[in-house]
Each structure stands twice: as structure tokens, then as C-alpha cells.
């Protein structure tokens, strides 16, 4: 994969190099421009071939390039992802994620089966760990499993690293640690297998996930980066069991104009600056805020979810912090 990417983009090394500018050459050579073209993505012609273009931030790129470009963005931000999230949202992203998980309330109900949760684009595992904690603490459910998928192996690597220090770690590590823990803690570890697993998958296809197998599909702050959102919604529909829940937490349109103006000023002025200072990577954060601007608003996205075959209740979304983020929930009929 790395050699294919380097052939296409001319980038020699895929390792994010924080203080070197060679890795950033590909982003600046594709020149993520600030000018708002105002044009939406040109639709791909029907039939075979990816001849259409899509948007990468405010720039239009061929569809097959977008996946690579987004991959580069997230490879370079993987390590400083959490710091940057805290700086960009002033720590509020934690509240959003906590509310998201408490709203979904995952966990086996009395007399019910343990859940199988699929967390897509969940690289660093924020949502996965929260859901496992909720299931264990609130419902005393130590069997619900989470499969974390992401298209970017670097982000998954971060998630795997973090999982090692939780009690949901890989089965093998659990066995090694079993010798050192007290007897009553044995019940917290699922000896048969791990409760969290990591897999590199493209959310538009989810090749390794069987049909009708998941109870809950979550995607938090990932769907705006997908090249083909309707395709991702369709594969979400495919892998969910009937009655399964699709839940999406994503940035959205602020519903109050004056606050929106302030928010845009903050986004475009402060966030790339913070990216430059903290992560030495202005371009990736410029892309991130432009992708937020490009994402459809709450009503449009709720309609896209209905078009994929989900049923929504009421408007289908809940605004957080005046619309900076929104939770969209749909149920497979």
C-alpha cells in the first residue's frame, strides 16, 4: 500500500515526521487552497470507473485521490490527535462523546444477549472504550464486544496502544497479566477472547464484516472524511441486524447565525495556527476545518440516512452545543 501511494503521490516516506517538512510536501503540492469554490462535488457518472471528482476540504480532487489524501492527513495527525481535539474544541469533545454514549446506552439488558458493536473510523478508540466502560459499569455486561475499524493503520495503532492499558486488552496480553492479578479481578477479563478488536477496513465496503451481524454501528467524527457517504450508509445498513441502530456523531451546521460567524472565525483563524504550533502541520488542520464546512447540514444528512433505508424518529438528529456537532440516529427496519 505504501509503495502504491508513493508511486501516485511521489511521497517517499509514509511515516509522519513531525519536524521534517518532506512529508508535508505532498499536501502543499496539492495546495489545499482556502478559496471557497462554492461548488459542490461533481457527481460521478453512472456506471464503471471513478471518473468523478469529490471535495477535499475546499478543493476538488479526483475521487480515488481523496482516500489517499485523507489517509495522509490522519497519519500525520495520529500522534497528536488528542491534544489537537482538546485544543480545537476546548475539551468539549469529551462531553460530546460522553453524551453520545449515554444516549445510546449500550449494554446487555436483563434477559437479553450481549451486544456486538461496530465502531467505524474509530481509530484511537475514544468511543469504543467509553462504550465498553458503560456496558461494564452500568449494565454489568462483560461480554459486549466492540470491533473498531479504520481505514488508517496509524490511527488504529494508536488505539491498540491505548487498549493495552485498559482491561479490554488483547486476549494474549490478558493471559500474561492474569498471573499477577488478584482472583476477584479475573471476572473482569474475558479470557476467551478480547472485548475489543481492531481491523483495517474501508467503511464504504466493510469487506470483513458479515451481513446482519452488528447490533450497533457508531461513527464519531469520521463520516465527513468518507469519499462516498451514501455508500458508507448503505454498508452500515447491510451489516446491521434488523432493529440495529446506526449512530453518527459529527460536526454540523451551527443554527444561530451570529454564533456561526464567531465559530467560523475561530475555526479558520485559531485552529490551523494551533495545528502549526503544536503539531507542526497546518495543512491537515486546514483540511479538517474545511471538511467541516463542506459536510451537509443536519436536515440533508438526516434525509441521506433515511434514503439508505434507516428509520428515524422525529427530526432524526440532536444538536450539541448549538449545532457545532450533531448526533444522528437511525434504526434498521
Amino acid at each position, binding site marked *: 500500500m505504501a509503495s502504491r501511494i508513493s508511486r501516485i503521490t511521489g511521497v517517499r516516506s509514509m511515516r509522519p515526521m513531525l*519536524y521534517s517538512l518532506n512529508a508535508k510536501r505532498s499536501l*502543499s503540492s496539492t495546495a489545499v487552497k482556502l*478559496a*471557497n469554490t462554492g461548488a459542490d462535488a461533481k457527481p460521478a457518472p453512472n456506471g464503471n470507473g471513478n471518473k468523478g471528482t469529490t471535495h477535499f476540504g475546499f478543493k476538488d480532487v479526483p475521487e480515488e485521490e481523496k482516500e489517499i489524501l485523507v489517509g495522509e492527513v490522519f497519519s500525520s495527525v495520529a500522534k497528536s490527535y488528542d491534544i489537537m481535539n482538546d485544543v480545537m474544541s476546548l475539551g468539549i469533545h469529551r462531553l460530546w462523546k460522553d453524551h453520545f454514549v449515554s444516549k445510546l446506552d449500550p449494554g446487555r439488558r436483563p434477559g437479553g444477549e450481549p451486544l456486538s458493536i461496530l465502531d467505524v473510523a474509530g481509530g484511537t478508540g475514544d468511543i469504543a472504550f467509553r462504550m465498553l466502560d458503560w456496558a461494564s459499569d452500568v449494565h454489568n455486561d462483560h461480554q459486549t464486544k466492540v470491533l473498531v475499524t479504520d481505514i488508517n493503520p496509524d490511527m488504529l495503532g494508536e488505539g491498540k496502544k491505548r487498549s493495552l492499558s485498559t482491561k479490554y486488552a488483547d486476549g494474549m496480553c490478558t493471559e500474561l497479566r492474569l498471573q499477577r492479578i488478584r482472583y476477584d479481578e479475573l471476572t473482569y477479563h474475558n479470557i476467551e477472547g478480547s472485548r475489543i478488536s481492531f481491523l483495517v477496513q474501508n467503511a464504504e465496503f466493510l469487506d470483513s464484516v458479515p451481513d446482519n451481524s452488528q447490533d450497533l454501528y457508531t461513527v464519531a467524527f469520521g463520516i465527513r472524511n468518507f469519499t462516498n457517504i451514501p455508500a458508507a450508509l448503505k454498508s452500515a445498513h447491510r451489516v446491521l441486524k434488523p432493529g440495529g441502530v446506526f449512530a453518527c456523531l459529527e460536526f454540523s451546521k451551527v443554527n444561530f*447565525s451570529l454564533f*456561526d*460567524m464567531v465559530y467560523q472565525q475561530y*475555526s479558520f483563524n485559531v485552529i490551523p495556527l494551533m495545528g*502549526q504550533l503544536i503539531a*507542526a502541520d497546518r495543512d491537515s488542520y486546514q483540511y479538517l476545518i474545511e471538511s467541516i464546512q463542506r459536510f451537509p447540514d443536519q436536515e440533508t444528512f438526516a434525509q441521506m440516512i433515511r434514503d439508505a433505508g434507516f428509520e428515524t424518529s422525529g427530526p432524526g438528529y440532536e444538536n450539541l452545543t448549538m449545532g457545532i456537532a450533531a448526533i444522528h440516529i437511525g434504526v434498521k427496519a
Partner: protein
Amino acid sequence: MRPLLNNTRAIRHIRSYTYKTEPSKYPGHVPTNCLQKLFLAAGSGIYSFFNPRRGDLIATLGEATALPPLMYRLRDVMLSDPTGRRILRERPRITSKTLDIAALRKYPANTVGKVYSEWLDLEGVSPDTRAPVRYIDDAECAYVMQRYRECHDFYHAITGLPIIIEGEIALKMFEFANTLIPMTGIGAVLAPLRLKPKQRERLRTIYFPWAIKNGATAKPLINVYWEEVLDRDVQELRDELGIEKPPDLRQLRKLKISHL
């Protein structure tokens, strides 16, 4: 008919607000307004003061503080010299690809090329690609800044100042006196705050006087077409430019003489 109160121009402006920026003027250009430059300067200044290894932030500080009058002045200095005009026309770039270090090592002793490659080997550095200029809002001034950045190592070689922080500060003062780029002045004035008293004394008594005198009286180094003078004798070049070689900083540090 009077417009409705909720349809005034101000409210319409706020309702339809989308963030807009100027178009970019050269590849890699990020247009920024005054306030953004101020934030960039403050942020990168503070961050790089505490973490001077972040070369990219020092570069950003340089671009954010590049006041247009001073950059245009430097460009005009280039325009008023025939070699400078040629540099601006041809826009040569110095990178590890365009400069063949192995060939330079074979040059005769005391030529600019040989001294440069010796200095690179002594300090253990290479002419790695300098960060491209992004925040300067004029394409020509951006090239002038890029050229200054890429020639910085040549200034090191011709003055013999080492890459340690003291040497960098002394060279910054020299460059400030010679080019008046604001970041060089800021670096030369604020960076010594990080040094020990003994190093500050060395700077104050020896290197700053040397830097100011030579920088101000020498010919502008930005006008030197370095790629063409590689085979010239280095002392001859120094005499032509009007630069004296300062005392060897590495030797001085080793000697540890109490009054130096």
C-alpha cells in the same frame, strides 16, 4: 417601504456569512490578515523560544514578522545591483539536489565551495530543504525570503561561525545589520536570554560588535550569487564584500579563559 427590522444589511450579512480569504499568489501561499499574522508571530515566537529545535516555527516567525516595508527594501537592494537583478530574474534555489556536496569537497583549499563543504562536515549538517515560504503576501518578497533562508548556511561558512546557539545568535545579529529582516533582529535580541552569563558576555564584548560593524559596512550578502562564486578564494570574497572573519567561537569556548 422601510425594510423589516430583521432584514437589515447587518443581519443579512451575518446570516449569509461564509469565511472568505484572498486568493493565493504563489504555490504554497497562505494569505493571512494582520491579526492572524500577529497571532502567528506571538505563538511561534513563544513556542520556539522555549523549544528552539522547532526550526519550522522559527521560519514561521520570520514570515509573520516580515514587515512589508523592510521586505520591499531588501528587494530594492537586490534590484539596485546587477547580480541581485539577475538572481531575481533567474530565481535559483539551493537544495541538496542542486548543490553537489561531494563535488564541492574536491575543490581546491580556501575556495568558497571547499570551505562550505568543510563547514558542513564539521558541523554535521546538510543543505536540507529549507521550509518553503508561506505567509508573505507578495510573490517576489517571498522569493527574497526564501533565498535568504537558503543562503544562511553560506553565511555561516564564510564567517566561520558554528551552528551552536551562540554562533547562530552572532550570525543573526550580523544578518540583521546586513539585511534588516525583523526576525533576525528579534532573534539576536531575545535569544541571548536563554544563554549563560559567560556566553552573553562573549556575545556582548566580541561578537555583537563584530556583527554590527561588519554587517552594516559590508556589501549586501543577499546579492551574492553563491552558485557562481563557489570556485573563488574565500578570503578574496571576504575582502570584496568587506567582511572580517571573527574569532573562532569553538576555540574560544574550549579555552575557557576567565575574562572571555
